[in-house]
């Protein structure tokens, strides 16, 4: 009789937990070193610009590159960068601490949604959930003052833009698969991604940016 109660009690307790409770399905904590970030984005024949996107790309110049003015990359551009990333997991959120420009991203796991008053920002508003052992991050409220990648591919930051990232840990490798949706500039999905390697000896350095050193022309 006592034994039969245990599974029943377990089910009862589980049913009382909020559906969005951040019971981590995987341990993503640690410092991760990017692997081959240079090839993380698709080649030109692997995606399609809209006419507006093509025109924006053709007009890109160094003056339009916000990183030369020490503006942090944000999302989507900053999702891929060649510097280490530290991940800290908490019950209600997962925090991404990027060395690059000291970016901090909070991935909310508690079911909250972006408030109406939340303005478009470089980092956007990120919510997360688990699909098995994969962390799925959904980011909206993105800024038009941004790029898709370091080569000047445009990003509109229009209200219909969003980015989905999937992080899956396999041993000491963290796989990232991402899709950006920007109908203004791209036809269909813009897919990118890379791997990270866990670096137990890694260290996040300060990244102090001086815009006096951002001039290329």
């Amino acid at each position, binding site marked *: 009789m006592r034994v039969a109660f245990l599974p029943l009690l377990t089910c009862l307790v589980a049913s009382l937990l909020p559906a969005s409770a951040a019971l981590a399905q995987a341990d993503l904590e640690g410092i991760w070193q990017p692997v081959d*970030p*240079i*090839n993380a*984005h698709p*080649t*030109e024949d692997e995606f399609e610009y809209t006419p507006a996107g093509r025109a924006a790309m053709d007009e*890109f*110049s*160094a003056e339009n*590159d916000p*990183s*030369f003015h*020490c503006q942090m990359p944000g999302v989507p551009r900053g999702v891929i960068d*060649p*510097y280490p990333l530290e991940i800290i997991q908490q019950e209600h959120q997962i925090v991404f601490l990027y*060395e690059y420009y000291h970016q901090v991203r909070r991935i909310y796991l508690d079911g909250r949604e972006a408030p109406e008053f939340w303005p478009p920002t470089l980092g956007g508003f990120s919510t997360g959930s688990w699909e098995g052992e994969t962390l799925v991050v959904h980011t909206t409220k993105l800024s038009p003052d941004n790029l898709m*990648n*370091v*080569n*000047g*591919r445009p990003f509109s930051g229009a209200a219909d833009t969003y980015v989905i990232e999937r992080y899956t840990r396999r041993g000491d490798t963290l796989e990232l698969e991402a899709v950006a949706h920007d109908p203004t500039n791209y036809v269909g999905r813009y897919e990118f991604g890379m791997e990270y390697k866990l670096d137990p000896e890694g260290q996040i*350095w300060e*990244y*102090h*940016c*001086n815009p*006096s*050193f*951002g*001039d*290329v*022309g």
Partner: protein
Amino acid sequence: MTARTGFSSVAFAVAIILAAPVVAHHSATYFDMGVDLVHENATVVEFQVANPHGILVYTIVNDDGDTEQWDAELPSANFSRRGGVVESLLSPGDSVKITGWPGLPTRTRERFMRLSRMDLEDGSYATFTAISAMYTRTGEE
């Protein structure tokens, strides 16, 4: 008569065509990464390791005997320092051999390049990619 060196006659030898796609890094947006530009006997004016990019300002004497000032861009300070490239490596007046990728005419100012290697007077050298730097002391090859 001491030969004046500036542009090496082999400076514009075409390097290995990089296999990486054009979109590899923003260096490819601004620099011709298929060409090696070599400046022998460059004289350091200024050397700063910084984010987003360090800078090496130097002068050379061109084939006409005129002094030209050039700027060479380095990777970020974070990459440079991780590879042992620090500001104390060079001082104004030092002689250094510069190798790099020239700026694309429509994308950058004149006399601007992206550094791929610098050879110091003491035999040590540093090599650079778009996202890394590595300093090698003499005898540590």
